[in-house]
Protein backbone atom coordinates (compact mmCIF):
# COMPACT_ATOMS: atom_id res chain seq x y z
CA UNK A 1 0.00 0.00 0.00
CA UNK A 2 1.05 3.56 -0.66
CA UNK A 3 0.08 6.48 1.58
CA UNK A 4 -1.27 9.70 0.10
CA UNK A 5 -2.29 12.89 1.85
CA UNK A 6 -5.20 14.95 0.66
CA UNK A 7 -7.10 18.07 1.64
CA UNK A 8 -10.59 18.99 0.62
CA UNK A 9 -10.93 22.48 -0.81
CA UNK A 10 -14.11 23.99 0.55
CA UNK A 11 -16.04 27.07 -0.41
CA UNK A 12 -17.95 28.86 2.35
CA UNK A 13 -20.71 31.05 0.89
CA UNK A 14 -21.51 32.63 4.25
CA UNK A 15 -18.81 32.69 6.93
CA UNK A 16 -21.34 33.22 9.71
CA UNK A 17 -23.33 30.13 8.76
CA UNK A 18 -20.18 28.14 8.03
CA UNK A 19 -21.75 25.60 5.72
CA UNK A 20 -18.87 24.70 3.43
CA UNK A 21 -19.28 23.10 0.03
CA UNK A 22 -16.58 20.72 -1.19
CA UNK A 23 -15.24 22.18 -4.42
CA UNK A 24 -11.89 20.48 -4.96
CA UNK A 25 -9.23 18.09 -3.73
CA UNK A 26 -5.50 18.57 -3.26
CA UNK A 27 -3.65 15.26 -3.43
CA UNK A 28 -0.06 14.70 -2.32
CA UNK A 29 1.96 11.54 -2.89
CA UNK A 30 4.59 9.97 -5.14
CA UNK A 31 6.46 13.31 -5.08
CA UNK A 32 3.48 15.08 -6.62
CA UNK A 33 1.04 17.59 -5.20
CA UNK A 34 -1.85 18.57 -7.43
CA UNK A 35 -5.28 20.10 -7.17
CA UNK A 36 -8.48 19.30 -9.01
CA UNK A 37 -11.66 21.30 -8.85
CA UNK A 38 -15.22 20.39 -9.54
CA UNK A 39 -16.24 21.95 -12.85
CA UNK A 40 -19.70 22.45 -11.36
CA UNK A 41 -18.64 24.57 -8.41
CA UNK A 42 -18.39 27.89 -10.21
CA UNK A 43 -21.86 27.45 -11.64
CA UNK A 44 -23.58 27.22 -8.27
CA UNK A 45 -25.70 30.23 -7.42
CA UNK A 46 -24.17 30.45 -3.94
CA UNK A 47 -20.60 30.57 -5.26
CA UNK A 48 -19.05 33.89 -6.24
CA UNK A 49 -17.68 32.86 -9.63
CA UNK A 50 -15.08 35.61 -9.85
CA UNK A 51 -13.75 35.01 -6.32
CA UNK A 52 -13.71 31.26 -6.89
CA UNK A 53 -11.73 31.83 -10.09
CA UNK A 54 -9.16 33.89 -8.20
CA UNK A 55 -8.77 31.19 -5.58
CA UNK A 56 -8.39 28.50 -8.24
CA UNK A 57 -5.64 30.58 -9.79
CA UNK A 58 -4.03 31.06 -6.38
CA UNK A 59 -3.87 27.31 -5.71
CA UNK A 60 -2.53 26.60 -9.18
CA UNK A 61 0.13 29.31 -8.70
CA UNK A 62 1.14 27.86 -5.33
CA UNK A 63 1.35 24.37 -6.77
CA UNK A 64 3.35 25.46 -9.80
CA UNK A 65 5.62 27.97 -8.06
CA UNK A 66 9.29 27.28 -7.61
CA UNK A 67 9.93 29.44 -4.54
CA UNK A 68 11.81 27.38 -1.95
CA UNK A 69 12.35 30.41 0.30
CA UNK A 70 8.67 31.28 0.32
CA UNK A 71 6.93 27.94 0.60
CA UNK A 72 7.74 24.52 2.08
CA UNK A 73 8.78 21.72 -0.28
CA UNK A 74 5.73 20.60 -2.19
CA UNK A 75 5.99 16.95 -1.20
CA UNK A 76 5.85 17.65 2.55
CA UNK A 77 2.96 17.83 5.03
CA UNK A 78 4.13 21.39 5.82
CA UNK A 79 3.22 22.44 2.30
CA UNK A 80 -0.39 21.45 2.91
CA UNK A 81 -0.40 23.08 6.32
CA UNK A 82 0.95 26.29 4.81
CA UNK A 83 -1.82 26.28 2.22
CA UNK A 84 -4.31 25.63 4.97
CA UNK A 85 -3.06 28.69 6.85
CA UNK A 86 -3.22 30.87 3.77
CA UNK A 87 -6.73 29.77 2.82
CA UNK A 88 -8.98 32.01 4.84
CA UNK A 89 -12.14 33.65 3.66
CA UNK A 90 -14.56 32.00 1.33
CA UNK A 91 -12.12 29.15 0.72
CA UNK A 92 -10.85 26.87 3.47
CA UNK A 93 -8.91 23.63 3.42
CA UNK A 94 -9.71 20.59 5.50
CA UNK A 95 -7.05 19.11 7.73
CA UNK A 96 -4.72 16.91 5.69
CA UNK A 97 -6.16 13.39 5.63
CA UNK A 98 -4.37 10.15 4.82
CA UNK A 99 -5.42 7.61 2.23
CA UNK A 100 -3.72 4.24 1.75
CA UNK A 101 -4.05 2.90 -1.77
CA UNK A 102 -2.95 -0.21 -3.63
CA UNK A 103 0.41 0.18 -5.33
CA UNK A 104 -1.00 -0.44 -8.80
CA UNK A 105 -3.33 2.56 -8.62
CA UNK A 106 -1.97 5.68 -10.27
CA UNK A 107 -1.89 9.12 -8.74
CA UNK A 108 -4.36 10.37 -11.35
CA UNK A 109 -6.79 7.54 -10.71
CA UNK A 110 -6.75 8.21 -7.00
CA UNK A 111 -7.17 11.93 -7.50
CA UNK A 112 -10.10 11.48 -9.84
CA UNK A 113 -11.66 8.94 -7.55
CA UNK A 114 -11.44 11.32 -4.58
CA UNK A 115 -12.89 14.13 -6.65
CA UNK A 116 -15.81 12.00 -7.75
CA UNK A 117 -16.41 10.44 -4.35
CA UNK A 118 -16.02 13.53 -2.18
CA UNK A 119 -16.67 16.54 -4.36
CA UNK A 120 -18.78 15.83 -7.43
CA UNK A 121 -22.57 15.65 -7.14
CA UNK A 122 -23.68 11.99 -7.05
CA UNK A 123 -25.53 12.10 -10.36
CA UNK A 124 -22.44 13.34 -12.14
CA UNK A 125 -19.96 10.96 -10.56
CA UNK A 126 -21.83 7.94 -11.90
CA UNK A 127 -22.01 9.16 -15.47
CA UNK A 128 -20.28 6.64 -17.76
CA UNK A 129 -19.48 9.31 -20.36
CA UNK A 130 -17.07 10.81 -17.86
CA UNK A 131 -14.98 7.65 -17.98
CA UNK A 132 -14.12 8.21 -21.66
CA UNK A 133 -11.84 11.06 -22.77
CA UNK A 134 -14.21 12.24 -25.51
CA UNK A 135 -17.18 12.22 -23.15
CA UNK A 136 -15.29 13.93 -20.38
CA UNK A 137 -14.08 16.69 -22.68
CA UNK A 138 -17.52 17.24 -24.21
CA UNK A 139 -19.12 17.46 -20.79
CA UNK A 140 -16.57 19.95 -19.51
CA UNK A 141 -16.78 21.98 -22.71
CA UNK A 142 -20.53 22.25 -22.24
CA UNK A 143 -20.35 23.07 -18.58
CA UNK A 144 -17.79 25.78 -19.17
CA UNK A 145 -19.44 27.26 -22.24
CA UNK A 146 -16.42 26.77 -24.46
CA UNK A 147 -18.45 27.32 -27.62
CA UNK A 148 -19.83 30.61 -26.34
CA UNK A 149 -16.30 31.59 -25.37
CA UNK A 150 -14.92 31.26 -28.87
CA UNK A 151 -14.30 27.57 -29.46
CA UNK A 152 -15.45 26.57 -32.95
CA UNK A 153 -17.18 23.28 -33.78
CA UNK A 154 -16.85 21.47 -37.09
CA UNK A 155 -15.08 24.37 -38.76
CA UNK A 156 -12.61 24.24 -41.62
CA UNK A 157 -8.92 24.30 -40.84
CA UNK A 158 -7.40 26.62 -43.43
CA UNK A 159 -3.67 26.80 -44.06
CA UNK A 160 -2.39 29.46 -46.46
CA UNK A 161 -6.00 30.16 -47.47
CA UNK A 162 -6.46 26.52 -48.48
CA UNK A 163 -9.11 24.50 -46.62
CA UNK A 164 -7.59 21.27 -45.34
CA UNK A 165 -10.20 19.47 -43.27
CA UNK A 166 -13.13 20.06 -40.94
CA UNK A 167 -11.91 19.76 -37.37
CA UNK A 168 -14.13 18.58 -34.57
CA UNK A 169 -13.15 21.63 -32.47
CA UNK A 170 -10.86 24.65 -32.87
CA UNK A 171 -9.67 27.12 -30.29
CA UNK A 172 -7.50 30.14 -30.90
CA UNK A 173 -5.82 31.77 -27.96
CA UNK A 174 -2.08 32.01 -27.93
CA UNK A 175 -2.06 28.89 -30.11
CA UNK A 176 -4.16 27.70 -33.00
CA UNK A 177 -5.51 24.41 -31.69
CA UNK A 178 -7.31 21.94 -33.92
CA UNK A 179 -8.90 18.90 -32.33
CA UNK A 180 -10.49 15.72 -33.61
CA UNK A 181 -11.95 12.73 -31.89
CA UNK A 182 -12.56 9.05 -32.20
CA UNK A 183 -15.42 8.32 -29.91
CA UNK A 184 -16.38 4.80 -28.97
CA UNK A 185 -20.06 5.45 -28.40
CA UNK A 186 -23.07 3.47 -29.43
CA UNK A 187 -22.81 3.83 -33.20
CA UNK A 188 -20.34 1.65 -35.05
CA UNK A 189 -20.76 3.67 -38.24
CA UNK A 190 -19.88 6.96 -36.61
CA UNK A 191 -16.78 5.53 -34.94
CA UNK A 192 -15.67 3.99 -38.26
CA UNK A 193 -16.16 7.31 -40.02
CA UNK A 194 -14.13 9.13 -37.38
CA UNK A 195 -11.27 6.65 -37.70
CA UNK A 196 -11.28 7.03 -41.49
CA UNK A 197 -11.39 10.79 -41.20
CA UNK A 198 -8.43 10.99 -38.81
CA UNK A 199 -6.43 8.62 -41.03
CA UNK A 200 -6.93 11.15 -43.79
CA UNK A 201 -5.96 14.02 -41.48
CA UNK A 202 -2.65 12.42 -40.51
CA UNK A 203 -1.47 13.08 -44.08
CA UNK A 204 -2.22 16.78 -43.59
CA UNK A 205 -0.57 17.16 -40.22
CA UNK A 206 2.93 18.01 -41.36
CA UNK A 207 1.58 20.93 -43.41
CA UNK A 208 -0.51 22.07 -40.49
CA UNK A 209 1.97 21.70 -37.64
CA UNK A 210 4.87 23.15 -39.61
CA UNK A 211 3.24 26.53 -40.06
CA UNK A 212 1.51 29.34 -38.19
CA UNK A 213 -2.11 30.37 -38.57
CA UNK A 214 -3.22 33.87 -37.66
CA UNK A 215 0.41 34.33 -36.58
CA UNK A 216 0.00 31.67 -33.91
CA UNK A 217 1.80 28.36 -33.57
CA UNK A 218 -0.34 25.38 -34.43
CA UNK A 219 -1.21 22.41 -32.25
CA UNK A 220 -3.15 19.25 -33.04
CA UNK A 221 -4.95 17.14 -30.47
CA UNK A 222 -6.69 13.83 -30.97
CA UNK A 223 -9.12 12.63 -28.33
CA UNK A 224 -9.43 8.88 -28.77
CA UNK A 225 -11.43 6.51 -26.59
CA UNK A 226 -10.31 2.95 -26.00
CA UNK A 227 -12.12 0.18 -27.84
CA UNK A 228 -12.42 -2.33 -25.05
CA UNK A 229 -15.22 -4.51 -26.43
CA UNK A 230 -16.89 -5.00 -29.83
CA UNK A 231 -19.96 -3.06 -30.88
CA UNK A 232 -23.13 -5.12 -30.72
CA UNK A 233 -23.21 -5.72 -34.49
CA UNK A 234 -19.44 -6.16 -34.83
CA UNK A 235 -17.76 -9.54 -35.34
CA UNK A 236 -14.55 -10.55 -33.64
CA UNK A 237 -12.40 -10.10 -36.77
CA UNK A 238 -13.72 -6.62 -37.43
CA UNK A 239 -13.30 -5.76 -33.75
CA UNK A 240 -9.64 -6.80 -33.89
CA UNK A 241 -9.16 -4.86 -37.14
CA UNK A 242 -10.70 -1.73 -35.65
CA UNK A 243 -8.49 -2.02 -32.57
CA UNK A 244 -5.47 -2.30 -34.89
CA UNK A 245 -6.65 0.73 -36.87
CA UNK A 246 -7.09 2.74 -33.71
CA UNK A 247 -3.65 1.83 -32.43
CA UNK A 248 -2.02 2.61 -35.77
CA UNK A 249 -3.93 5.86 -36.01
CA UNK A 250 -2.86 7.14 -32.60
CA UNK A 251 0.73 6.11 -33.31
CA UNK A 252 0.71 8.02 -36.58
CA UNK A 253 -0.76 11.15 -35.03
CA UNK A 254 1.84 11.10 -32.27
CA UNK A 255 4.66 10.41 -34.72
CA UNK A 256 3.65 13.40 -36.83
CA UNK A 257 3.70 15.78 -33.89
CA UNK A 258 0.09 15.64 -32.69
CA UNK A 259 -1.01 15.02 -29.11
CA UNK A 260 -3.09 11.97 -28.37
CA UNK A 261 -5.35 12.01 -25.34
CA UNK A 262 -6.63 8.62 -24.28
CA UNK A 263 -7.61 9.03 -20.64
CA UNK A 264 -10.40 11.06 -19.02
CA UNK A 265 -7.84 12.59 -16.67
CA UNK A 266 -5.87 14.06 -19.56
CA UNK A 267 -9.08 15.22 -21.20
CA UNK A 268 -9.93 16.93 -17.93
CA UNK A 269 -6.52 18.59 -17.90
CA UNK A 270 -7.05 19.78 -21.46
CA UNK A 271 -10.42 21.23 -20.50
CA UNK A 272 -8.80 22.97 -17.53
CA UNK A 273 -6.12 24.40 -19.78
CA UNK A 274 -8.65 25.71 -22.28
CA UNK A 275 -10.77 27.07 -19.45
CA UNK A 276 -7.81 29.20 -18.43
CA UNK A 277 -7.07 30.34 -21.96
CA UNK A 278 -10.47 31.02 -23.46
CA UNK A 279 -11.96 34.44 -22.77
CA UNK A 280 -14.37 34.66 -19.85
CA UNK A 281 -17.99 35.29 -20.73
CA UNK A 282 -19.08 38.86 -20.05
CA UNK A 283 -22.28 37.62 -18.44
CA UNK A 284 -22.64 34.10 -17.08
Amino acid at each position, binding site marked *: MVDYRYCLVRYVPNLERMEPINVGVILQGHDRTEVRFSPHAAKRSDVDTAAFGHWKK*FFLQELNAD*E*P*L*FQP*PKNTPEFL*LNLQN*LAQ*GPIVLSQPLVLSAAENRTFDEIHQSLLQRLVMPPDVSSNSEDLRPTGRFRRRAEERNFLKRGMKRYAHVAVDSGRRWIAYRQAVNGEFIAMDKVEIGRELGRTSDEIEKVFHITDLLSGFLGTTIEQKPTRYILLADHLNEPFSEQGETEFQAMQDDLRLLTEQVAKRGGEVIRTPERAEALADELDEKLPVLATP
Partner: protein
Amino acid sequence: MSDYVEEIVEQPMDPLGGASGRKRRFRVQFLGKENNPEFPYTVANEVVATYLGIILGLNVPAVLTYRIHDQPLVFIQMLDRDPGMVQMPPASSSSLSQFVSENPEAVHAAIIFDLFVANNDRAFGPLRRNLALDVGKRLFLYDQGNACFYRNRLQAGIVAGIPRLKAVARELPAMFDMSHKGNHYLEFLTNWTLVESCCQKIAELPDFVIRNVIERIPDYLARPDATERAALGEFLIGRKGYLIDHIIKWATLFPELPKRGTNG
Protein backbone atom coordinates in the same frame (compact mmCIF):
# COMPACT_ATOMS: atom_id res chain seq x y z
CA MET B 1 -18.82 46.90 4.28
CA SER B 2 -16.05 44.42 4.93
CA ASP B 3 -15.29 41.49 7.18
CA TYR B 4 -14.09 43.75 9.95
CA VAL B 5 -15.74 47.14 9.58
CA GLU B 6 -19.46 47.64 9.99
CA GLU B 7 -21.30 50.93 9.94
CA ILE B 8 -23.87 51.74 12.59
CA VAL B 9 -26.57 53.50 10.66
CA GLU B 10 -28.00 56.35 12.73
CA GLN B 11 -31.62 57.32 12.89
CA PRO B 12 -32.43 60.91 11.85
CA MET B 13 -32.94 62.01 15.46
CA ASP B 14 -29.60 60.66 16.65
CA PRO B 15 -27.49 63.51 18.00
CA LEU B 16 -24.31 62.77 16.14
CA GLY B 17 -23.85 66.16 14.52
CA GLY B 18 -20.93 68.38 15.25
CA ALA B 19 -18.72 70.89 13.62
CA SER B 20 -15.73 68.83 12.60
CA GLY B 21 -16.85 67.15 9.45
CA ARG B 22 -19.50 64.59 8.71
CA LYS B 23 -19.67 62.00 11.44
CA ARG B 24 -20.70 58.38 11.18
CA ARG B 25 -20.38 55.49 13.60
CA PHE B 26 -18.78 52.15 12.93
CA ARG B 27 -18.10 48.88 14.62
CA VAL B 28 -14.55 47.82 13.82
CA GLN B 29 -13.30 44.36 14.65
CA PHE B 30 -10.22 43.85 16.80
CA LEU B 31 -8.46 40.73 17.96
CA GLY B 32 -8.09 40.64 21.75
CA LYS B 33 -4.97 39.20 23.37
CA GLU B 34 -4.11 38.84 27.03
CA ASN B 35 -1.17 37.75 29.15
CA ASN B 36 -0.91 34.27 30.61
CA PRO B 37 1.85 32.49 32.57
CA GLU B 38 3.60 31.32 29.43
CA PHE B 39 3.17 34.69 27.72
CA PRO B 40 3.37 37.14 30.63
CA TYR B 41 4.17 40.24 28.58
CA THR B 42 2.04 39.92 25.44
CA VAL B 43 0.05 43.10 26.07
CA ALA B 44 3.14 45.21 26.77
CA ASN B 45 5.06 43.73 23.85
CA GLU B 46 2.23 44.47 21.43
CA VAL B 47 1.74 48.01 22.68
CA VAL B 48 5.39 49.06 22.68
CA ALA B 49 6.42 47.41 19.41
CA THR B 50 3.32 48.63 17.59
CA TYR B 51 3.72 52.26 18.63
CA LEU B 52 7.39 52.15 17.71
CA GLY B 53 6.47 50.61 14.37
CA ILE B 54 3.97 53.38 13.68
CA ILE B 55 6.50 56.06 14.61
CA LEU B 56 9.05 54.47 12.30
CA GLY B 57 6.54 54.54 9.45
CA LEU B 58 5.87 50.83 9.24
CA ASN B 59 2.56 49.35 8.20
CA VAL B 60 1.35 47.79 11.46
CA PRO B 61 -2.16 47.40 12.85
CA ALA B 62 -3.62 49.86 15.34
CA VAL B 63 -3.77 48.67 18.95
CA LEU B 64 -5.99 49.61 21.86
CA THR B 65 -5.71 48.60 25.48
CA TYR B 66 -8.79 47.67 27.42
CA ARG B 67 -10.01 45.85 30.49
CA ILE B 68 -12.86 43.40 30.81
CA HIS B 69 -13.62 42.30 34.38
CA ASP B 70 -10.16 43.40 35.50
CA GLN B 71 -8.58 41.33 32.75
CA PRO B 72 -6.21 43.55 30.76
CA LEU B 73 -6.36 43.06 27.02
CA VAL B 74 -4.70 44.46 24.00
CA PHE B 75 -6.98 44.86 21.01
CA ILE B 76 -5.31 44.58 17.65
CA GLN B 77 -7.18 45.81 14.63
CA MET B 78 -7.86 43.07 12.13
CA LEU B 79 -6.16 43.62 8.82
CA ASP B 80 -8.94 45.22 6.88
CA ARG B 81 -9.21 44.77 3.22
CA ASP B 82 -10.95 46.69 0.54
CA PRO B 83 -14.58 45.51 0.49
CA GLY B 84 -14.06 44.37 -3.07
CA MET B 85 -11.13 42.25 -1.94
CA VAL B 86 -12.60 40.37 1.00
CA GLN B 87 -13.18 37.27 -1.06
CA MET B 88 -9.73 37.36 -2.63
CA PRO B 89 -6.84 35.00 -1.89
CA PRO B 90 -3.66 36.23 -0.17
CA ALA B 91 -0.48 36.99 -2.07
CA SER B 92 0.90 33.87 -3.67
CA SER B 93 4.43 32.74 -2.88
CA SER B 94 5.53 34.04 -6.26
CA SER B 95 3.96 37.46 -5.61
CA LEU B 96 5.66 37.64 -2.22
CA SER B 97 8.96 36.65 -3.76
CA GLN B 98 8.52 39.35 -6.39
CA PHE B 99 7.64 41.89 -3.72
CA VAL B 100 10.79 41.06 -1.76
CA SER B 101 13.02 41.41 -4.79
CA GLU B 102 11.38 44.65 -5.91
CA ASN B 103 11.05 46.34 -2.51
CA PRO B 104 14.34 46.00 -0.63
CA GLU B 105 13.68 49.22 1.32
CA ALA B 106 10.46 47.91 2.86
CA VAL B 107 12.02 44.52 3.56
CA HIS B 108 15.10 46.03 5.22
CA ALA B 109 12.94 48.41 7.28
CA ALA B 110 10.89 45.47 8.56
CA ILE B 111 13.89 43.31 9.47
CA ILE B 112 15.80 46.14 11.17
CA PHE B 113 12.64 47.08 13.09
CA ASP B 114 12.32 43.50 14.30
CA LEU B 115 15.96 43.46 15.31
CA PHE B 116 15.41 46.71 17.22
CA VAL B 117 12.38 45.49 19.16
CA ALA B 118 13.95 42.01 19.46
CA ASN B 119 11.13 40.26 17.64
CA ASN B 120 12.04 36.83 16.31
CA ASP B 121 8.58 35.81 15.17
CA ARG B 122 8.39 36.82 11.55
CA ALA B 123 9.20 35.04 8.28
CA PHE B 124 8.55 35.27 4.57
CA GLY B 125 8.72 31.51 4.35
CA PRO B 126 8.69 28.62 4.10
CA LEU B 127 5.75 29.07 6.45
CA ARG B 128 4.62 32.69 6.27
CA ARG B 129 4.66 34.19 9.74
CA ASN B 130 3.05 37.44 10.80
CA LEU B 131 3.35 39.34 7.58
CA ALA B 132 1.15 39.90 4.56
CA LEU B 133 0.70 42.18 1.60
CA ASP B 134 -2.23 44.51 2.12
CA VAL B 135 -4.66 45.72 -0.51
CA GLY B 136 -2.20 48.43 -1.54
CA LYS B 137 0.49 45.76 -1.98
CA ARG B 138 2.38 47.13 1.00
CA LEU B 139 4.12 44.92 3.51
CA PHE B 140 1.91 44.56 6.56
CA LEU B 141 3.51 43.44 9.84
CA TYR B 142 1.24 42.04 12.50
CA ASP B 143 1.62 40.21 15.80
CA GLN B 144 4.39 41.88 17.75
CA GLY B 145 3.50 39.82 20.86
CA ASN B 146 6.89 38.12 20.97
CA ALA B 147 8.95 41.32 20.82
CA CYS B 148 10.74 43.06 23.71
CA PHE B 149 10.22 40.98 26.87
CA TYR B 150 9.38 37.94 24.70
CA ARG B 151 7.92 34.88 26.43
CA ASN B 152 9.17 32.06 28.61
CA ARG B 153 10.86 29.32 26.67
CA LEU B 154 12.47 27.18 29.30
CA GLN B 155 13.49 24.50 26.80
CA ALA B 156 15.63 27.11 25.06
CA GLY B 157 16.83 28.57 28.37
CA ILE B 158 14.92 31.81 27.85
CA VAL B 159 13.29 33.62 30.74
CA ALA B 160 10.90 36.34 29.65
CA GLY B 161 11.29 39.87 30.96
CA ILE B 162 14.49 41.52 32.15
CA PRO B 163 16.62 38.35 31.70
CA ARG B 164 15.66 38.26 28.04
CA LEU B 165 16.38 41.97 27.55
CA LYS B 166 19.79 41.55 29.14
CA ALA B 167 20.63 38.51 27.06
CA VAL B 168 19.70 40.21 23.81
CA ALA B 169 21.53 43.40 24.78
CA ARG B 170 24.68 41.34 25.37
CA GLU B 171 24.65 39.61 22.04
CA LEU B 172 22.45 39.60 18.96
CA PRO B 173 22.34 35.79 18.56
CA ALA B 174 20.44 35.56 21.87
CA MET B 175 17.39 36.79 19.95
CA PHE B 176 17.23 33.75 17.75
CA ASP B 177 15.87 30.62 19.36
CA MET B 178 13.72 29.44 16.44
CA SER B 179 16.37 28.43 13.92
CA HIS B 180 15.07 24.84 14.08
CA LYS B 181 12.03 26.07 12.18
CA GLY B 182 14.11 26.94 9.13
CA ASN B 183 12.42 30.30 8.71
CA HIS B 184 13.55 32.56 5.89
CA TYR B 185 13.74 36.18 6.99
CA LEU B 186 17.25 37.25 7.94
CA GLU B 187 18.62 36.25 4.54
CA PHE B 188 16.67 39.08 2.95
CA LEU B 189 19.01 41.60 4.56
CA THR B 190 21.28 42.16 1.59
CA ASN B 191 22.36 45.77 1.43
CA TRP B 192 24.57 47.63 3.92
CA THR B 193 23.46 51.05 2.75
CA LEU B 194 19.85 50.17 3.54
CA VAL B 195 20.86 48.55 6.83
CA GLU B 196 22.71 51.67 7.87
CA SER B 197 19.94 54.06 6.86
CA CYS B 198 17.32 52.00 8.74
CA CYS B 199 19.52 51.85 11.83
CA GLN B 200 20.16 55.57 11.55
CA LYS B 201 16.44 56.28 11.48
CA ILE B 202 16.02 54.24 14.66
CA ALA B 203 19.03 55.93 16.29
CA GLU B 204 17.36 59.28 15.73
CA LEU B 205 14.33 58.31 17.82
CA PRO B 206 14.32 60.74 20.75
CA ASP B 207 14.62 59.10 24.16
CA PHE B 208 11.45 60.81 25.34
CA VAL B 209 9.50 59.19 22.49
CA ILE B 210 10.62 55.76 23.64
CA ARG B 211 9.75 56.57 27.24
CA ASN B 212 6.34 57.87 26.18
CA VAL B 213 5.69 54.74 24.18
CA ILE B 214 6.42 52.65 27.26
CA GLU B 215 4.03 54.91 29.15
CA ARG B 216 1.32 53.61 26.83
CA ILE B 217 1.49 50.25 28.63
CA PRO B 218 -1.57 50.49 30.88
CA ASP B 219 -0.73 51.15 34.52
CA TYR B 220 -3.29 48.57 35.64
CA LEU B 221 -1.15 45.85 34.07
CA ALA B 222 0.81 43.93 36.73
CA ARG B 223 3.47 42.77 34.29
CA PRO B 224 5.67 44.54 33.47
CA ASP B 225 6.13 46.15 36.83
CA ALA B 226 7.87 49.50 37.32
CA THR B 227 11.35 47.96 37.35
CA GLU B 228 10.65 46.06 34.18
CA ARG B 229 9.24 49.13 32.45
CA ALA B 230 12.37 51.07 33.35
CA ALA B 231 14.52 48.20 32.11
CA LEU B 232 12.65 48.16 28.81
CA GLY B 233 13.23 51.89 28.41
CA GLU B 234 16.93 51.45 29.14
CA PHE B 235 17.09 48.51 26.72
CA LEU B 236 15.46 50.34 23.79
CA ILE B 237 17.29 53.61 24.35
CA GLY B 238 20.58 51.77 24.44
CA ARG B 239 19.69 49.52 21.56
CA LYS B 240 18.90 52.31 19.14
CA GLY B 241 22.50 53.39 19.51
CA TYR B 242 24.32 50.07 19.33
CA LEU B 243 22.05 48.20 16.89
CA ILE B 244 24.26 48.88 13.89
CA ASP B 245 27.32 47.72 15.84
CA HIS B 246 25.57 44.48 16.74
CA ILE B 247 24.66 43.86 13.13
CA ILE B 248 28.24 44.49 12.06
CA LYS B 249 29.60 42.29 14.81
CA TRP B 250 27.22 39.42 14.10
CA ALA B 251 26.94 39.93 10.34
CA THR B 252 27.26 36.19 9.78
CA LEU B 253 23.67 35.88 10.99
CA PHE B 254 22.70 37.49 7.69
CA PRO B 255 24.10 35.19 5.03
CA GLU B 256 23.24 37.37 2.05
CA LEU B 257 24.76 40.54 3.47
CA PRO B 258 28.00 41.14 1.56
CA LYS B 259 31.27 42.08 3.16
CA ARG B 260 30.80 45.58 4.51
CA GLY B 261 32.03 48.28 2.16
CA THR B 262 31.38 46.23 -0.96
CA ASN B 263 27.97 47.76 -1.64
CA GLY B 264 26.30 51.10 -1.20
